[in-house]
């Protein structure tokens, strides 16, 4: 065995280019289905994990998947919104906690999530530095958002304005960063959390400006009488909430009609959960309540179906590769016929020749398996982290 092994190794080493191509193609054939399986399994795990921790979700009727992905992973918000008053509807039930979510805006690539402080407790988010948001215009950054934007406590971030042609669009608001969260490995790492009211300020539902009632300059006023003052366009709206101007920020209209993208509902027990779900099922307006776990599990099922199809394709690809490999070996054997005959003439048995050729194949398969394992290890350490980032 030692002699044929040595000769097989020498042959493969001498033809290293050809050998490398063979090894790589076989290792990829092994690696692709393994990787696919791992990626899908990890992806499903990541998707399901967060969904399982979110008992119920209320949002506008429409795509359940869109609502779930938006509220859980802060992807694009659902097209339709629900009024803030929906919170009161939910709270008609006792033993229920609600967490409003409003997230149409961004700071760069990071989603601004208008919510309440309890959201941080609900997700188990801990502060790495600073404190939680308390006042209008304050925000707390997820670890990835903070490190990527190079922001620390005491700095400021500016919300990204809407498109230039959106005349009803938001205006950039400068917010004070009062806290940075510890890394969680969840979508929260990439969020900018702020009070829901601050989010509404960005939406243009509240604003602050110079005091026009007590204005001394006539240029700021178009008209003024005992009951009202009409400001001119010269009145400056604030784009930053400071201690000095915070008192001047005010909401126009009924706050109960202000928009939310979703409400996370946390029932105290299973009975409450069943009742509240029943109530929403019988509603015929534009609001829906869903169980994220069920929605995501449907999504995961689809993911697994796709995986199975891809696995089947990989197996067929593998069969094709191994057929080609067999052909390559067969052709190689024919090309080496003289060499193999010489070996027999000078003392090698047919068994030794078979061993030699078999060992060449075995070395290629072993090397391929090792490389496939290395690839899989790299995927586990680097690729799955990338997947986490992608999903989150």
């Amino acid at each position, binding site marked *: 065995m030692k*002699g*044929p092994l*040595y*000769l097989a190794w*020498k*042959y493969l*080493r*001498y*033809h290293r280019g050809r050998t490398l191509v063979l090894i790589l193609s076989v290792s990829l054939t092994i690696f692709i289905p393994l990787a696919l399986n791992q990626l899908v399994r990890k992806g499903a795990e990541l998707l399901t994990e967060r969904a399982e921790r979110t008992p119920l979700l209320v949002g506008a009727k429409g795509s359940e998947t869109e609502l779930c992905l938006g509220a859980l992973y802060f992807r694009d918000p659902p097209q339709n919104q629900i009024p803030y008053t929906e919170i009161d509807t939910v709270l008609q039930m006792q033993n229920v906690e609600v967490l409003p979510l409003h997230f149409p805006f961004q700071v760069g690539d990071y989603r601004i999530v208008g919510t309440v402080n309890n959201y941080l407790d609900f997700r188990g988010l801990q502060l790495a530095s600073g404190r939680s948001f308390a006042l209008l215009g304050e925000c707390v950054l997820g670890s990835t958002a903070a490190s990527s934007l190079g922001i620390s406590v005491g700095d400021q971030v500016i919300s990204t304005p809407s498109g230039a042609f959106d005349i009803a669009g938001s205006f950039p608001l400068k917010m004070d960063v009062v806290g940075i969260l510890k890394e969680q490995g969840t979508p929260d790492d990439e969020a900018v959390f702020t009070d829901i009211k601050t989010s509404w300020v960005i939406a243009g539902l509240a604003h602050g400006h110079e005091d026009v009632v007590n204005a001394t300059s006539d240029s700021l006023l178009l008209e003024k009488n005992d009951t009202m003052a009409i400001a001119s366009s010269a009145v400056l709206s604030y784009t930053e909430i400071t201690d000095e101007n915070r008192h001047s920020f005010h909401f126009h209209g009924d706050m109960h009609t202000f928009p939310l993208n979703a409400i996370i509902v946390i029932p105290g027990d299973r009975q409450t959960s069943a009742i509240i779900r029943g109530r929403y099922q019988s509603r015929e307006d534009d609001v829906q309540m869903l169980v994220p776990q069920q929605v995501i599990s449907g999504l995961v099922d689809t993911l697994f179906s796709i995986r199975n199809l891809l696995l089947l394709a990989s197996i067929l690809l593998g069969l094709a590769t191994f057929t080609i490999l067999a052909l390559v070996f067969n052709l190689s054997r024919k090309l080496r016929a*003289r*060499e193999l005959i*010489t*070996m*027999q*003439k*000078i*003392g*090698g*048995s047919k068994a*030794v020749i078979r061993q030699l050729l078999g060992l060449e194949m075995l070395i290629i398969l072993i090397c391929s398996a090792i490389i496939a394992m290395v690839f899989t290890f790299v995927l586990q350490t680097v690729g799955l982290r990338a997947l986490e980032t992608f999903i989150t």
Partner: protein
Amino acid sequence: MIQCKDLYFTYPGSAFSLRFQNLTIEKGDQVVLVGPSGSGKTTLLNILAGLTKPTRGTVQIDGINLYQYSEADRRDFRIVKLGLVFQEFELLEYLTVKENILIPYHLNPIIDRDAQAFKRVEELATYVGLADKVNRYPSHLSQGERQRVALCRALVTQPQVLLCDEPTANLDPQNRDQILTLVTDYCRNNDKILIMVTHDREIRQQFDHVIDMEKTQA
């Protein structure tokens, strides 16, 4: 000593046949087989090497009737007792000169690759003038050098008989003469039997015995 008695060989369905009533080659003899293509030179060499079983007759080498044994036993016998040199050198391109010389040890565990084997490689490489090229691959050698490596490969197991099938056919006259001198001198000095097949009538003078296959078969 090699003794062939009542040797007869024919390929099935072929008009070709090879006959030797009696052929005896003594230890230290140097025999050249000459004759035109198709006269059976290589067939006789293969029969003597244990590679082609004759249709009839016996081949005895050192008193051992070669074709009484199985193919595996003949192979073991061949690697210990016989050395083969081919016209096309038949070196393995992926092995260095040293590794090519040592290849019989890799192919058959019946012979041990001990320290003596490595010493013999050095001695043989020095003898054929390739001492400084033992780590080169055959592709970096000239035709003459390749045939010298093939010669070393045939001699490394210290065979009693050296069988050469037109070893100088692909060489220029200068290399041909060098190889011939190396082979005949080595066998003469080490008391080995040398049997060489050749087309080249010029070299027959250097041999003790000439077997003209054309005349023999006639």
